[in-house]
């Protein structure tokens, strides 16, 4: 070694330069929230419709219905023929997609600014009045079953699904978003129509728009749209609280080439925004980059793993931190005990200032870099508005500054006790 390593001096976290505009918030007369963010430089605009209709609100017989509905939406509406939406949006130079999570579903379109008004009308027609034709339903069920088969051919996904099943028993987060095969085979369009009617309601939806907004008079247009005709419902749905089950198991999986250690812990729910930022810092300190605790110990020094990752999944009923270590099956025991040891050390001695500063830089920059694209901005403001969190884009950086090493040690590190989490060892069958 020619030089010993010298940690950089800690530097203050900089604000977002230049300050991004605050989101503009408006409501339609039926209560649907519209949130817009002006990004004058962006070459495209993102329209993002959010709804509190994720898989977690399915009843048992509705397994997979939230995600299946997301597929069926693209099969046309009362005004749009099957495939017409895609063809028209793509002919305008745009593209669209959708994603179903545990808590919510969203449908988004990226579109050149001159075509934004037309795309918005198409999107709302599509999402709010799906046709749910019987033949299309049967065909799309095949597609969903293929999606399920494709994920079951990835042993890693099988392992993660099993981890959640055991760690979140009696909670919808333990069930597959894609649904159970038998349930999917039994679904009927009428059940789906009822699901749509009861969950896609004014109080459960929000529309986020990010990009160059100058020429759009959206509120006027929206008052005449399908969105304004959505009935209001009672109070919006929220998932019931999670209580993660501690435990351990070993799973033998065919076609697995490397062993996995998977672990899950429960952390504060999305509503606790300040705590969520703290968890983000902690997982970064632990497993983001070569100089993070876990990567340095397990991959760089002891060379026990091919990779080790710690992912924070921010969720409404309780966030989940998921660890994945990929290793030789012969190293599994040691990997597990080293993870334990890294946690013990953090419990004994709070992290150093420089480690936290490094984490703050990584998290802060990651956040800033994410704000460059209209799609990620619309996703951020759309998701937080949907769940009643109406902060501006600077706020998460300010929350970050409230964290110091002592507070991390006191409030969050104890929550990552391996004894509080669920550990799954997946080994080749």
């Amino acid at each position: 070694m020619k030089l010993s390593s010298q940690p950089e001096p800690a530097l203050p976290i900089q604000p977002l330069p230049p300050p991004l505009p605050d989101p503009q918030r408006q409501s339609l007369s039926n209560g649907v929230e519209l949130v817009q963010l002006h990004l004058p430089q962006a070459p495209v605009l993102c329209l993002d419709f959010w709804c509190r209709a994720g898989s977690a609100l399915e009843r048992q017989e509705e397994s997979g219905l939230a995600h299946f509905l997301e597929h069926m939406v693209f099969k046309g509406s009362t005004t749009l023929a099957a495939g017409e939406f895609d063809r028209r949006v793509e002919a305008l130079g745009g593209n669209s997609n959708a994603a179903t999570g545990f808590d919510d579903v969203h449908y988004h379109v990226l579109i050149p600014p001159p075509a934004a008004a037309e795309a918005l009308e198409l999107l709302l027609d599509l999402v709010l009045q799906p046709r749910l034709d019987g033949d299309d339903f049967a065909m799309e069920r095949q597609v969903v079953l293929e999606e399920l088969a494709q994920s079951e051919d990835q042993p890693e996904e099988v392992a993660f699904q099993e981890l959640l099943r055991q760690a979140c028993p009696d909670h919808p987060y333990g069930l597959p978003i894609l649904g159970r095969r038998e349930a999917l085979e039994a679904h009927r369009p009428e059940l789906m129509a009822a699901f749509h009617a009861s969950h896609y309601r004014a109080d459960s939806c929000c529309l986020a728009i990010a990009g160059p907004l100058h020429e759009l008079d959206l509120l006027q247009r929206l008052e005449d749209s399908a969105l304004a005709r959505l009935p209001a419902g009672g109070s919006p749905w929220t998932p019931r609280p999670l209580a993660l089950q501690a435990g351990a198991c070993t799973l033998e999986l065919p076609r697995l080439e490397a062993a996995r250690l998977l672990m899950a812990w429960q952390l504060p729910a999305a509503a606790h925004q300040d705590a969520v930022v703290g968890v983000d810092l902690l997982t970064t300190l632990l497993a983001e980059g070569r100089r993070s605790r876990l990567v340095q110990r397990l991959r760089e020094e002891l060379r026990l793993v091919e990779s080790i990752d710690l992912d924070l999944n921010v969720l409404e009923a309780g966030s989940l931190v998921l660890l994945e270590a990929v290793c030789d099956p012969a190293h599994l025991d040691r990997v597990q005990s080293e993870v334990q040891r890294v946690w013990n050390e953090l419990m004994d001695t709070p992290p150093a200032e420089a480690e936290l500063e490094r984490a703050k830089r990584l998290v802060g920059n990651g956040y800033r870099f994410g704000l460059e694209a209209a799609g990620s901005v619309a996703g951020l403001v759309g998701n937080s508005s949907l769940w009643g969190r109406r902060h501006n884009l600077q706020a998460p950086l300010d929350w970050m500054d409230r964290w110091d090493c002592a507070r991390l040690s006191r409030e969050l590190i104890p929550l990552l006790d391996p004894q509080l989490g669920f550990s799954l060892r997946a080994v080749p069958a």
Partner: protein
Amino acid sequence: MTVEARTLAGGCPLWLIHRPGPAILSAKLWLRGGSSGDRPGERGAAQLLAGVLSRGCGPFSGDALADLVEGLGAGLRCDASEDGTLISLKCASDDAPQLLPLLLQLVRRPWLVDDQIDLERQLNLQTLQRQKEDPFQLAHDQLRQQLYGQGPYGHDPLGVEPELQQLGREALERQAAALGQAGAVLVLAGEIPEAVEELLLGGQEGGAWATVPPQRQAGPGGSSGDHFAASQDETEQLVLMLGTSTVPMGSAQALALRLLHCHLGIGMSSRLFVALREEHGLAYDVGVHYPARLGAAPFVFHLSSSSERAEEATSELLREWQRLLEQPLSPEELELALAKFRGQEALGRQTCSQLADRHALVLGHGLPFDFADRCLEQAAELTPGQLQAVAQELLGAPCLSLCGPAAAIASAERVWQRRQLR
């Protein structure tokens, strides 16, 4: 957005894409020479070297380098692809003065310490092993063999296990000395600091870095292997890949292929998506793989379908390929493909990293900076007849690669044989 073209002392072209606003800087240094330049017996060397570059350079040990980069919340990556090695830096623009000097130091003064080479080699070997869990990867590796055999494009950039195992410092030192000698280009996009050339040349020893701009030249070709190949795996689905090797990016026919790619595989209104997924419910994932290459680029249809539907999936996939040869696009289809091509361009220019990346790729292939804009203009002139002629010339004899259960492979093979006899 303004663009400046400069040349660094020694000959490396430097392109500055000024994009004030988000206070971010993205830098991409493209070096001609990737895994296609791996010598026989040393397959995996380019990627191994790329991985080791960021494990110590100039005055920085691997740890010191990681402390500097991660301490500033920046990202620094080195990756080899088939045709080039790309060094990427992304940081807050205020931190650029501390980080920009690293780019040329990585190339010119890498440490190449045995211990770090051992680690990186071990990681690459483990990744190669783990990739075999993915049936798509298996089908893809097999197709690569069919299209390129033992040629320069015939292996995963990560390498070939027994050869990678043998690779050591000597091979990497030889390879490192040649970095950029076949051509290099540096593109910066975002908020660019003052006196950027001085920053880039900071910490250099032994004078200017002598290199040349990447030239336009023919890359590796294809080689005709087996037209049918299958590997058995106990999966639920059968993975099908149907493809052939074609022409380099920037060649006269490549633009027609790009439009066919848009027609067939971009978006939910694309031909393959509609025909195979919407009309037959045969697959969740279906599309076209057509990466930019200096040589004979692969042009591949891919899909995965339940084993019991192997016969139908194979017939429909072959039918779509055949349709391309026999039937010109309708004017409406061509117009939609053009709209997607333009849309893709706009969507690919959203962030500083995308801008730097796209231009580095184009310039690295020895093409002009405004290549993409020229393509947009030229594409509008192409006719359905011209697209069909290119399809007939280049796509006449595709190879089929399968991965899945034996029974599904047998059904698919029967369909394939009938087609051969026709």
